[in-house]
């Protein structure tokens, strides 16, 4: 069996697995950050983390939905890259736009 604790099991971790794993990590991160945000909604680092994690988690989810709805799986690496790029651009745009 593949032992996930061994270095070799992670040696050939592929893009699709990273996309899946990072979306889950972002979800766990969101739970912690939302709790911190509810305690003090005005802390800028928490706001930044919340925005980054929401974008990251959501856009990777959009990628998964597009594949579920029939986009060919051969595009999944491109979709992962696009999700990351759109996330960075959207983060920069939101962060520059001071809405309060």
């Amino acid at each position, binding site marked *: 069996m*593949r032992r996930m604790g061994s270095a*070799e099991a992670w*040696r050939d971790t592929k893009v*699709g697995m990273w996309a*899946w794993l990072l979306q889950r990590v972002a979800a766990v991160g969101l739970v912690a950050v939302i709790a911190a945000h509810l305690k003090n909604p005005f802390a800028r680092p928490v706001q930044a983390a919340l925005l980054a994690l929401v974008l990251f988690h959501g856009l990777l989810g959009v990628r998964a939905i597009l594949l*579920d*709805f029939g986009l060919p*799986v*051969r595009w999944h690496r491109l979709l992962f890259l696009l999700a990351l790029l759109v996330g960075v651009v959207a983060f920069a745009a939101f962060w520059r736009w001071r809405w309060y």
Partner: protein
Amino acid sequence: MVLKVFRWSPGSRERLQKYWVKARHGMTVLDALVELQRNSDATLAFRYACRVGMCGSCAMVVNGRERWVCRTLLSNLARGPVTVRPLYQFPLIRDLVVDMAPMKNKMLEMKAVFVPGRRAMAGDGFAQIGSRSRERRAIDAAIECIGCGMCVSACTMVSHDPRFPGPAALNRVFTLQRDSRDGAHAGRSQAVLAEDVLTRCHGQANCTAVCPMEISPTDSILALRRRAVLRLLGIGPR
């Protein structure tokens, strides 16, 4: 060149044994293993047949990635020792040889066996589906599976959930569900709706990444899932 080869036999401990091989131009990992067996260690067990990238029986894990060792040139691997292990997810028989029976059993559990239906016969012979027909094109790539087991080895969900049938069995189910000559669509549709089947695939596409026949079992599973959803909504085919 140093080869670190996985060794195990019943009653002994798993270990990586180091061997030295003189790498020649055009030498594959299989060539190296054959040379080791002939000249250094006759007890080394591994499986191969055609040696020319046709049969798929020499599937192993080389430097962490599933590959057919007869197609893997030593010169194409990263510098440093080359690690050769048996496929993951399958029970070990000895050294690099694994028992492929679980994959066959999963196929049987999923009823991934052709059952002639009402449209199986045409005239005096077996009905044929034209190579240019829509039905054939939908499964064209997926029917090329030769059962080497690399997709199963690479699948993290098989590792996580032993009840998950795995990419090879579900790819086979997909081809049969789209075959109008098959008469067991309803039973198979029911089988894939079980808790640990279609919903268990997380679309990581490891299977697609390693398939030497360039099949995408992930696409097959997602197509089955869409079909199952439509069926549950009462608007899709059986």
